[in-house]
Structure formats: structure tokens, C-alpha cells
């Protein structure tokens, strides 16, 4: 198949061999699981269970609320022992609403009722079941999958792209999943295609995963699913870049893939869809890569949602040496973890413990305008110009140079010889702009309230004056009447003597 050219991109050393060879192992069930209510983009789920309640594996713990949200299910059978705050998988380590479940070790599933033939279901029904299974994008963004399915059905998607790029260094969870469970993935892909009506189905896999490509090709023989080898480069696995390399089209700025008739899902999501529709199992576990130079025995684990990062590291032999940095996700876009005592969520693709040599932190120096960042940017931006604006406190100027088109892939920071944390600059400016936007809205709201108040006060004053005037007029009228009456009386009295005299 003809591939299209991509701009920019970088070739970081993969470090994939650390974890790519050992088969996926199942994480020994931890005693306690910590299940956050917010594991996806959108509104947090609303919990339905109470402390002390017994739950079965796969039981609905928390329902989705709002248009963009996803439900959360019990990752194992056991008892709810706490509903409250627990540190979340975020650099801040701040606490977030979490259900704590004590496992009973039975792994007792709920009564699942899979349809006899999922392909007989209507597209609407498939989207409904995918939503009910709590499936979100497993590539990392964790956008609710059902929302995307409905959206693409409404905008007539013709091409379904399955993202098997996995361009982040170290991560091999999709690689292993494709090698070991290709037939389930292909079934899931066909179900997604059925749900969206896409006629062309492409699976893009980077050339550095030949075994995965072979397994997926073997599993998709005699099906409309076409497995395509794409060049190994970063950020190949970014949605926009995967679309560009496979179709030659670009997602319009500010738009969605659906605008050009394309839907992109991760291969891991396809596996979760297959599990939900063919076995009736909601998303309660995922494959996670545990890797990095500080991990004793790197590999991939199938772990229940809510297991602590520390549980996963322990299952991989623990730390070989002290880790200079802990990362959730890949090294290019992942977030730093302040501690390993945070739970795994649906979007967690990797837990990395990196050594000092691997993170190699150097103090930033001045920009020498070498344009390495310009050549590396897959979006055609000028990172150095945006950074120059942000440095002088002009984020709006950075927007003029394309800040809003930045996908924060980190290619620019990666290649910068002066080690300037460009992505940090851009995220800071995006946050600053959002804060300014909020402040502006708040100011406008305040101004509106103030205006309304002063108008109200003016009205009250006006009404008061009006009332006073009316009172005065009334009084004047009354006085006038009184006076008139008195005059009349006086006149009468005057006349009387005349009468008398007359």
C-alpha cells in the first residue's frame, strides 16, 4: 500500500527490547485495589455502592454521568472498604475520589450475558454496550469509546484506522497484545467497523514490530482488515500523523478525524471491545508495560484497574537501583509520578522507572535558533518562535505562531541542543491562556452582575423619587383641595355677611 509522507518527527532510541520478549503475565491479585472514579476524559463517574457492600468482578461500581463520561466496574470480587480520596496517578500526587476494594481472592465474575452473535447487533446497540462496558481509548488519551463511535456514525465515517503504532519508547503493551491475542483484536476491529459502517479498515503498525505485523496479518486473512507496516518514527502513533501517513489527508485545524471521514482507535481498545461484546466482560484490566533501566525484570503485565504501580513493579522483581524518575505512560508524553503508591487507571500504558543516565537532565541554555525544533515538529510549527513569545509573557503572540495546533508530542524538546523544555513552555502558555479565558469570563460575569446591580439601584432610586414625587403631587393636590375648600368656606363666609347685610 502506498504510504504518504510525514513531516518532522524524531527517532528516539526505542529501549523496547527491554520488555518486548517475555510473554504477558497476569499480575498476582493484590489484596486491595484503589479504583478512581475519574479515569477518562469527561465527567467523573457517580458511585452506586456503599462501604461494606460485597461486589462481584465486573459489577458496576459507578455510573457515567453527562454526555462524555464512562462507568467504572469492579476489577475483582470483594468488599468495598472505603469511598474517599486517594492519591491519583498525576504528577501532583493530589487525591481524587476513589473506591477502595478489598479482594476476596475468588475473582467471582458477575453473570455475563454475551449476545450469541454480536455481529447481529445494530450499530446503536454495539455503541451502547461499549459505553456500558466502560471502554475508553487505551492508547493513553482515555476518551470514552462509545462517544467516538456515535460521533463517527453521525458523520459518515468511511475509513477505520486502528492504531498499532506504539511509537513511545519503552512501551510494548500493544506489541505483546498483537502478538498474543491477534484474533481477538481483529474480531474487535470488525465489530467497531460494523458499528461505524466504515468500509476501509487499516491497521497501522510500526516497522519495528515485525512479529506483531505477522500475527495480525495471519489473524486478518480473509477479512476486510488490512494490516499496513508504517515507518518507525515518533510520533507515528499520534492520531493526526497516523491518518496522514495512511490516507495522505490532514485533520482540519480545530476539527476532528471524523470531519474527513476517518475514525481512529487503538488496538488495545479493539481488544476491550471484543471482550465486552463477545464475553460480556466490562473493562476491568489492561496490559501494562513495566520497564526502564531501574526495573529488575521488565515485561508486560495484565493488571486489574486499581492495582498500585508499586504492585506492578514488585511483580517485575522490584527496583534494581534507585529510580531517578518514575513515569506513567511513555517517556515522551507520560507524566511523572511522585510515588509508586498510585493506582493504575484505564489509560495507563506503562510504568517506567528510569535511571539518571536515561533521563539525562541538563540545565537549559539559550536558544541558538538552530531550527532543530522546526525540523522535528510533525505539525509544521516554529517551536522556537512560540517559546520566544511565551518567554516574554506573550502567550497570545504564541497563539499567532500556532500554539493551538501543538500536539505536545515533545519532539522539539527532545532534539533541542540547548535542552529548553519547550513542551513545558507550551503547556504553561496553554494553561495561562485558559486561566485568562476563565478570568475574562469571570470578569464579564462580575461586570454583568455589577451592571445589573447598579441598574437595579438606579431603578430603586428612580422608583423612590417617582413615589416621592407622586406623594408630593398627591399632597399638593390635597393641599390645593384643602385650600380650595378653605377658600370656598372663606368665600362663603364672606358672602354670608353680605347676605346678612343684604
Amino acid at each position, binding site marked *: 500500500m502506498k504510504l504518504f509522507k510525514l513531516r518532522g518527527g524524531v527517532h528516539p532510541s526505542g529501549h523496547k527490547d527491554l520488555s518486548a520478549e517475555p510473554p504477558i503475565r497476569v499480575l498476582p491479585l493484590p489484596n486491595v485495589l484503589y479504583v478512581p472514579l475519574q479515569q477518562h476524559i469527561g465527567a467523573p463517574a457517580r458511585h452506586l455502592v456503599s462501604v461494606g457492600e460485597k461486589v462481584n468482578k465486573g459489577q458496576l461500581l459507578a455510573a457515567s454521568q453527562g454526555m462524555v463520561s464512562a462507568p467504572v466496574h469492579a476489577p475483582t470480587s470483594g468488599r468495598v472498604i472505603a469511598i474517599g480520596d486517594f492519591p491519583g496517578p498525576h504528577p501532583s500526587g493530589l487525591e481524587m475520589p476513589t473506591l477502595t476494594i478489598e479482594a476476596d481472592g475468588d475473582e467471582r465474575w458477575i453473570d455475563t450475558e454475551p449476545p450469541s452473535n454480536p455481529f447481529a447487533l445494530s450499530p446503536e446497540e454495539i455503541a451502547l454496550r461499549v459505553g456500558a462496558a466502560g471502554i475508553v481509548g487505551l492508547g493513553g488519551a482515555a476518551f470514552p469509546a462509545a462517544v467516538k463511535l456515535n460521533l463517527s456514525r453521525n458523520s459518515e465515517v468511511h475509513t477505520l484506522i486502528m492504531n498499532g503504532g506504539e511509537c513511545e519508547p519503552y512501551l510494548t503493551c500493544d506489541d505483546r497484545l498483537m502478538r498474543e491475542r491477534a484474533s481477538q483484536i481483529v474480531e474487535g476491529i470488525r465489530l467497531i467497523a460494523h458499528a461505524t459502517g466504515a468500509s476501509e479498515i487499516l491497521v497501522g503498525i510500526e516497522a519495528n514490530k515485525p512479529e506483531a505485523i505477522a500475527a495480525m496479518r495471519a489473524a486478518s486473512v480473509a477479512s476486510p482488515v488490512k494490516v499496513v507496516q508504517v515507518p518507525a518514527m515518533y510520533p507515528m502513533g499520534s492520531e493526526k500523523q497516523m491518518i496522514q501517513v495512511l490516507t495522505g489527508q490532514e485533520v482540519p485545524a480545530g476539527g476532528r478525524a471524523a470531519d474527513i471521514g476517518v475514525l481512529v482507535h487503538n488496538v488495545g481498545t479493539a481488544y476491550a471491545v471484543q471482550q465486552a461484546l463477545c464475553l460480556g466482560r466490562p473493562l476491568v484490566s489492561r496490559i501494562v508495560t513495566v520497564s526502564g533501566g531501574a526495573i529488575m525484570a521488565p515485561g508486560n503485565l495484565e493488571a486489574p484497574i486499581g492495582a498500585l504501580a508499586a504492585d506492578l513493579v514488585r511483580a517485575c522483581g522490584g527496583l534494581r537501583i534507585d529510580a531517578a524518575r518514575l513515569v506513567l505512560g511513555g517517556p515522551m*508524553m507520560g507524566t511523572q509520578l511522585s510515588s509508586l503508591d498510585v493506582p493504575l487507571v484505564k489509560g495507563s500504558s506503562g510504568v517506567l522507572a528510569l535511571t539518571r543516565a536515561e533521563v539525562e537532565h541538563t540545565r537549559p541554555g*539559550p536558544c541558538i535558533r538552530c531550527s532543530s525544533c522546526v525540523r522535528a515538529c510533525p505539525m509544521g510549527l516554529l517551536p522556537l518562535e512560540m517559546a520566544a513569545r511565551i518567554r516574554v509573557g506573550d502567550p497570545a503572540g504564541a497563539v499567532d505562531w500556532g500554539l493551538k495546533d501543538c500536539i*505536545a508530542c515533545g519532539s522539539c524538546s527532545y532534539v533541542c541542543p*540547548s*535542552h529548553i523544555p519547550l513542551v513545558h513552555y507550551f503547556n504553561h502558555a496553554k494553561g495561562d491562556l485558559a486561566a485568562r479565558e476563565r478570568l475574562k469570563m469571570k470578569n464579564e460575569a462580575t461586570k454583568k452582575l455589577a451592571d445589573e446591580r447598579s441598574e437595579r439601584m438606579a431603578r430603586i432610586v428612580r422608583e423612590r423619587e417617582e413615589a416621592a414625587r407622586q406623594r408630593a403631587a398627591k399632597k399638593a393636590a390635597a393641599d390645593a383641595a384643602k385650600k380650595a375648600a378653605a377658600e370656598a368656606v372663606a368665600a362663603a363666609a364672606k358672602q354670608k355677611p353680605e347676605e346678612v347685610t343684604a
Partner: protein
Amino acid sequence: MTPIAHSPHAHAQVSVSQVMATVMLALTPATLFGFWLYGWPAINLWVVALTVALVSEAATLKIMGRPVRGALLDGSGLLTAWLLALSLPPWAPWWLAAVGSLFAVVIGKQIFGGLGQNLFNPAMAARVMLLISFPLEMTTWIAPLPLTSATAPGFLEGLAITFAGLPPADGISSATLLGHVKTELGRDIGLAQALSGFYDPAGFAIGQRAGSLGETSAILLLIGGLALIARRIITWHIPVSMLAGVALPALLFNLIAPERYPGLDYHLLSGALILGAFFIATDPVSSPNSVSGQLVFGLGCGLLTWIIRTWGGYPEGVAFAVMLMNAGTPVIDRYFKPRIYGRDRKGVALNPVKEGAK
């Protein structure tokens, strides 16, 4: 607790000092050739330029209260002085190199705010300043007198030439090709006659000619420049477009009036063109940052070089051309930007295209 680090958590193995060191390495063959060709005075001049650059940069940083170590170790000051030294007449007095280095590092770079802030290429700014202020010293050329030849000045004599102003022996001083041809054409002497016995393309390619310390060997400079492209320190855009900017008018005018306008090889092999195209115009700080901008910039440098050489008052125009285009860099950067993904050239979001609608 460790401070929060931002993604990416991996970094390519590159640094500014590494970039500068690679450029200096690429300059080394041509520089060593210059040392051999012009002997001890050339070596002295180079040492003076680099030493003064280091000392004056350290002093300036100290006075301005900026951290000295980091800025000194990045190698940018040394590289600037190195490039300046290569563009000086090889037997020039020591103070010419010292004043030039001082000007390049302090006024050319630090006054603008240090590395990355200067509008003009510091080495070229210094060269132009010297050329305007000290025209005699800056145009006193000598014929090649290799270090290994019998008549070459010894170490002590070299010191006397550089530091005590010992005048060169008779018959050593010479004119550059560009200067010679300019004079002869001014005397209405045809090109063929002017060039005969003075211009030998093969010798010029190797560097056997009168000229600046390190700009004579087109071949060695080309090798260094190609190495920089191979190591991805520079891209091909500026060198190729600059050479094209000289080559196109040279070819055209030579075709029209061969007796008045010298041909392609003459322009490519003389003066500072190869050094300028690969090492000076490509200075990242003072050149545009998009591919289209770089092509415009290079083409402008080349055209201006040819125009100054052909019709200007000075025989050589590379330094002037680069500085003029440096001044245009901010404007070029404003108008020549890459197209953003999902937008057209004007920056408007692309229209959604449906397969069915096509």
C-alpha cells in the same frame, strides 16, 4: 521530594557545545592547510584571535554580572574568533586580530544579549568593521609561502611579522584574484588577458593562491561543509541556494559578455564563497528558521555577493552580502513560515473533505 519534571523524559544526545565543537572540527582541515600555506604568522594570528575572544568574553560576562563558566564553555566565542581569523589576511598584524575578536565577541554578540540574540553574524560584523576602518592592513595579501619551503619565515621571524610589524620581503606580497581582476577590468583590460598566468582552476581548488588565512582551499572547506551536512549540524538549503545565487548570474552574464564577466568556476573558487556558504551564512542565530526562508536567504546572499563582486567598490562581497541578508532575517522569518498541519498556507483551517463529496 523531587521537583516535578515535565515530559519528555528522554533527550537526544546533543548539546550546544557539541554543535560548536563539530563545526570547529570541520574547519580544522582548511585551517591546518592555511597554517601550512602561510606559515608561522598565520598561526600567531589565529592564536591571538582565539585568546582575545576568550579573555574579552569572560571579562564582559563578569562586568555584566552573568555566569561566566557556561557561556565560555559553549564554544561559540571560540568559533566566532576562529571564523574571523580565517577571514583575515594571513600576515596581518596582531592588533588587527585582537581588535576584530574584541569587536566580534563584545559588540557583535554580548551587547546584543549573548548567544542567540545577535542580529548579525559576529565574525562578519567584525570583518566588515576592520575592512572599513583599516583598509590597508585588510588588503595586504601575500603569495603562498608554505611552511616547508626554504624561504618561509621561521618561528622567530613569524613572531616579528605578527607582533613587531616586520614588513614582508619583496616579491612576497601579492594581490588576490578578485582584486587583480577588478583592477584590470577597471583599466579596460579584457578578462582573458587579466586571467592569464594568474588564474589556474586546479591550483585554486586546492588553495594555492593569495587570500585570507583559511578561505583559499575550496576542496577542504567543501569537505568540512559536507561533513556538517552529514552530521546534521546544518542543512543543504543555505549553502546550495547561496552557491546558486552566485552561479546563476555568473553563468548568464559570462554567456552574454565573456570578456567582461568571469565564469562560474572563477566565482566558486575565489574569495570566501565556499567558507561563507557552508560556515558563515549557515550561522543558525542570524539566518532564517524555515526551509523556504533559508532558501530565500541563501539565494539573497549569493546574488548580493555576485553583485558586489561585479559592480561594487570592493572586490569581495561575501561579508557584506551575509550581513545585509542578516538584517533581512526577521522579515524573512515573518513571511516564510512552514505550512501548519491541518491549515492552508495562509493559516486558515482546511475544509473538511468527505470521500463521498469528491
